[in-house]
């Protein structure tokens, strides 16, 4: 599904990613771990199309097609979704209106009719229940005044609504207490199918107890320095990152 080839990227003159190679197949869950500053968040930003980062070499290929020339919204229409480490607050736009707009724009881009209001409401009810979200959050301004945990839950709610092919969860566990973590992880697990894939970016092993990865990769100084199965995460937890450098 996703193929990253020799990806180099950075901001201005500063290189951050220095040759990433990664292949993610449908149905798989990959975890990317690494110390602060290793390039984890840059990788997710580049895949989802954040123009603050410049790709200097290599390619990102989604379903046999390079996406580097596509805008973030075009990538979203092709099924890329990123759960933000720090979701943005947008005062004045309710969560409901925001997600309705996002869904209908995606449908429009894919040549589909707008989702009828009745179906939209049903979908919202269903997915917010999955994340055990308090309904009142849906009518409030997007993320405004939400706690860290509420914001993350809202991210996964949006993921549930948009049903992406490739979901990238950037530090989704940060700011979550254990109960919220379980709900969020449960939500992600329920959304997993044979057709979609998940990349979990995390600093700690904790989340991986709940979202169990097929592969674990360790990122250090812009490169994947080690890959393995889920046991690699436990090893990292025990030994820290130093032994891998």
């Amino acid at each position: 599904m996703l193929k990253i080839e020799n990806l180099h990227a950075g901001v201005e003159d500063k290189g951050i990613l220095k040759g990433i190679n990664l292949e993610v197949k449908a149905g798989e869950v990959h975890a990317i771990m690494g110390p602060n500053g290793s390039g984890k968040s840059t990788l997710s930003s580049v895949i989802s199309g954040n123009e603050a980062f410049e790709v200097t070499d290599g390619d990102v290929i989604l379903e046999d097609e390079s996406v580097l020339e596509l805008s973030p919204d075009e990538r979203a229409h092709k099924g890329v979704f990123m759960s933000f480490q720090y979701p943005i607050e947008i005062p004045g736009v309710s969560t409901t209106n925001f997600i309705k707009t996002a869904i209908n724009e995606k449908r429009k881009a894919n040549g589909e009719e707008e989702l009828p209001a009745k179906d939209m409401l049903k979908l919202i009810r269903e997915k917010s229940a999955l994340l055990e979200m308090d309904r009142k959050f849906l009518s409030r301004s997007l993320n405004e005044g939400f706690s860290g945990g509420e914001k993350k839950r809202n991210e996964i709610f949006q993921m549930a609504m948009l049903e992406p092919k490739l979901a990238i969860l950037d530090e989704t566990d940060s700011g979550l207490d254990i109960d919220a973590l379980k709900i969020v992880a449960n939500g992600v697990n329920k959304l997993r199918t044979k057709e979609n894939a998940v990349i979990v970016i995390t600093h700690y092993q904790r989340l991986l107890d709940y979202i169990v990865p097929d592969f674990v990769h360790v990122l250090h100084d812009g490169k994947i320095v080690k890959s393995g199965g889920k046991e690699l995460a436990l090893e990292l937890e025990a030994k820290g990152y130093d032994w891998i450098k």
Partner: protein
Amino acid sequence: MSLKDNLISSFMVMENRGKVDLDSGFHQMRSEAINAFEKQGFPTKKDEEWKYTSLNSVLKHDYSIFPKSEAAVEFKEVKKYFVHEIETYKIVFIDGVYSSFLSETTHDGYDICLMSAALKKPKYKMVLDNYFNTIADKENSITNLNTAFTMEGAYINIGKNKVLPKPIQIVNFYTGSEKDILLQPRNLVVVGENSHVQIIERHQSLSDNVVLTNAVTEIFANKRAIVDHYKIQNDNDNASMIDSTYVQQKANSIVSVNTYSFGGKLTRNNVEFFHEGEHIESHINGISILDKKQHVDNHTLIHHKFPNCESFELYKGIFDASSTGVFNGKVIVDQEAQKTNAFQQNNNILIGDKATINAKPQLEIFADDVKCSHGCTIGQLDESAMFYMQSRGIPEKEAKALLLYAFGNEVVEKIKIPELKTRITKLIANKLGVKLGFEI
């Protein structure tokens, strides 16, 4: 002949043609006003209050000054300019002349009618003597000009204890019957104790001919009165507007003046509040969304003279292309006005590379036991928010519009008439060039 000379000689023509009652005290007022205007002239950028707004481009036209008789306008052609979803009183003028056909006035329990009628009939004399031109700024040459030529406008006099069952719409149409026209409507609004009034005002040109409107409104809110005045400024590119609204409030009254400036070539709003009692609330809100070379200048004054009063001011501006904006918000708190709460907020987003805003909060506080704050921001669209929205599949144009809509929403939320709120939201969506993907 310059416009100023033209106006002064037109005033003499008006006197000679017997259009006005030369012996009345009212004419004395006109004469004083035209004399003051003659001395003052039109403001230039040398005047501190006009530093960032030049009238040169709007004063160069050869304006017709006296309204002709009513041109015919079909209701269906202009229906869209009314908030027609609800029942309202209507005071409608076409090229400055009252249109009885489009209007719906009343004298049943209160007067919602015409300035021209009030000027003629003796029974209105006392109200005019008590209120007319008593709070309009005599130092303002353009207001003086309006006073000198006062012919027509809305006359609204609501007695005590009346809660109006429906809002009042004051709509001025200009048909393009003259090549260039100067319109000077003059409105008087007197609201008695405990009475509630809502007013929606609009000026709309129906052709591409040049129009300059110099409107003056005086609003008097007596004790415990509640008055909301909404001004829709969405006129076409050849229409310019100088609108001066003076508000006097008695104890425990609540008044809001709201401007929605999306259209027009040049728009200048002067909104001035004067407090005459305690426990008054004043609200003053505005949103400007401009593009091309449009210019909007919001000049506001809130004068706190008594203790225990509150004022809330919120202005937002979105400036695209080469548009320009001015915000000058003056708040004066006299020494006697202890326990004043005065809040002012002005937020601007510049989208266009050549767009500019000159923002000047001006607080003059002479009392020591007060809460006063002001915040002024000038920024650009938040790129992280843009990326967030795009990453959810919302294209750049729509994301931008949604963010701008959200930015302005705080002002729109203050509208108390739901149908008007919907209308303003639609105007904003139109102006931003998007169909917002949800029911609004």
